[in-house]
């Protein structure tokens, strides 16, 4: 396999987009191209484009987004495909770009993740996201993603002693990190006592999916992120000589049962464990080599569970580590320095690419106030469905 890495990154401000969906996707793409010095028209060297989006056709009424993007940016005749893997569409698109270049089929790929969620009401958006649940066994009941997160949380509370306050601690940490991230959706400091005090909690942090409360889950966001991938051996030929190269050392995905009830142990996230194990194996890295991680905290319970399944913390200890501050920016294992999905926002198809953008910033040493000193190796986990299709990646600057 050829060595593949990232030489350009782009990221719109997450939140409510002020521009049409295609413009938003193109803005992230152009920023990544400009960052790398990639040109358009006759000077274009991008030969493939992958756009990750869960529902641009359904929600934004723009389908064939990859075809639209290459034309708008004048990088024809680059091959162009739209990739759908639910909320893991972004990292899936990066994985396919990686594989295209590693195999020698491609030399330079643009990967974009984009989602416009706020074009519709929360009521409609909740239904749209729920359509990825089992089409006969889950969706028709009115089950939602928060429903499964609630049921999963209840099991981990019983099994490992996770408390509601632990979820709030992670939420407060991620909100604090997002205050340092100019592209984050929510930039408000959240005070732990305000969202945990029993006397006011019904008003400040109401139940959404018992036992989960509002601050235990991510907001609904628009946004786009992009990375430019290149074969290391082709950098000079393609005009990217001297650009900082962040290596994709391992990237892999794995699946689990679609029908959540049919998991042998419903407290385990098998696809997280298997995909991260594959990414570690590909990269020759181990959990103890990870300096910084972006985990898919659509629900705060997932940051706990993923930190265990990926081996960053021992099984059953993720919430204890969070209590002890180990996952803070200056802790021993910083997690979600970007603010995570909780506060940076979660525009479904954009999220996986956005996680990778944050790790690239950390490994370039350009994460400013969020910088993890001396970070060399980073991990991302991008979680599709309720864990039925997960992508993990290990990046290094070595």
């Amino acid at each position: 396999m050829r060595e593949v890495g990232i030489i350009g990154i782009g990221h719109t401000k997450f939140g409510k987009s002020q521009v049409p969906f295609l413009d938003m996707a193109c803005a992230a793409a152009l920023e990544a191209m400009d960052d790398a010095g990639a040109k358009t028209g006759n000077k274009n060297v991008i030969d493939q484009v992958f756009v990750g989006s869960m529902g641009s056709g359904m929600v934004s009424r723009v389908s064939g987004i990859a075809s639209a993007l290459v034309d708008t940016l004048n990088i024809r005749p680059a091959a162009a495909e739209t990739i759908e893997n639910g909320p893991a569409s972004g990292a899936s698109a990066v994985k396919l770009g990686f594989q295209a270049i590693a195999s020698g089929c491609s030399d330079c790929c643009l990967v974009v993740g984009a989602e416009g969620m706020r074009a519709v009401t929360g009521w409609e958006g909740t239904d749209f996201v729920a359509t990825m649940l089992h089409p006969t066994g889950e969706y028709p009941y009115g089950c939602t993603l928060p429903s499964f997160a609630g049921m999963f949380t209840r099991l981990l509370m019983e099994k490992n002693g996770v408390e509601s306050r632990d979820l709030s601690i992670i939420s407060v940490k991620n909100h604090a990190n997002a205050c340092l991230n100019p592209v984050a959706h929510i930039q408000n400091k959240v005070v732990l006592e305000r969202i945990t005090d029993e006397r006011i909690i019904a008003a400040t942090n109401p139940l959404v999916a018992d036992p989960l409360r509002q601050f235990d889950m991510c907001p609904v966001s628009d946004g786009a992120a992009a990375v430019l991938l290149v074969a290391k051996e082709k950098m000079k030929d393609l005009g990217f000589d001297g650009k900082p190269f962040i290596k994709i050392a391992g990237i892999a995905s794995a699946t689990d049962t679609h029908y959540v009830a049919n998991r042998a142990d419903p407290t385990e996230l098998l696809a997280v464990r298997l995909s991260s194990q594959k990414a570690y194996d590909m990269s020759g890295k181990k959990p103890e080599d990870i300096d910084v991680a972006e985990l898919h905290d659509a629900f705060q319970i997932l940051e706990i569970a993923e930190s265990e399944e990926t081996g960053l913390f021992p099984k059953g200890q993720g919430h204890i580590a969070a209590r002890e501050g180990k996952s803070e920016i200056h802790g021993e294992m910083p997690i979600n320095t970007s603010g995570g999905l909780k506060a940076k926002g979660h525009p479904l198809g954009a999220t996986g690419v956005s996680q990778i953008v944050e790790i690239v910033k950390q490994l370039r040493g350009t994460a400013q106030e969020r910088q993890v000193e001396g970070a060399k190796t980073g991990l991302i986990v991008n979680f599709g469905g309720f864990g039925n299709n997960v992508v993990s990646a290990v990046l290094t600057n070595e």
Partner: protein
Amino acid sequence: MEEGRKMYAYQCKKCQKLHHPRYIVCQNPDCDGREFDEMELGGKAKLLTWTRVYNLPEGFSQAWLNFGIVEFENGVRATGQIGFDDIENGMEVVSTVGVIRNFVIKYKESVNEEQYGFIFQKP
């Protein structure tokens, strides 16, 4: 509750493994069966976990709905709504069949909004 409506487990004709919901290929990793017998699924079950959801999706107008995952006495698990509010993990429940939603979202409605563009005419 409508008389005659039933829920089913699907038993692989080759290895007898019980399934819910319906699958196309047997989920036993050592079997490749593709034919199933329908067996009525109901009766007593143990509640494994549950949630009460206040932010329901489009079309649901209830203030909240309770959802749970249960395990039937034959070992089959299923997700469903819970029709009462004093819920505890591990409790025994009895399964019934009833209306879980009274609408289907077929396609988006359109709204009246004029948009402008070229309309070419004869000179």
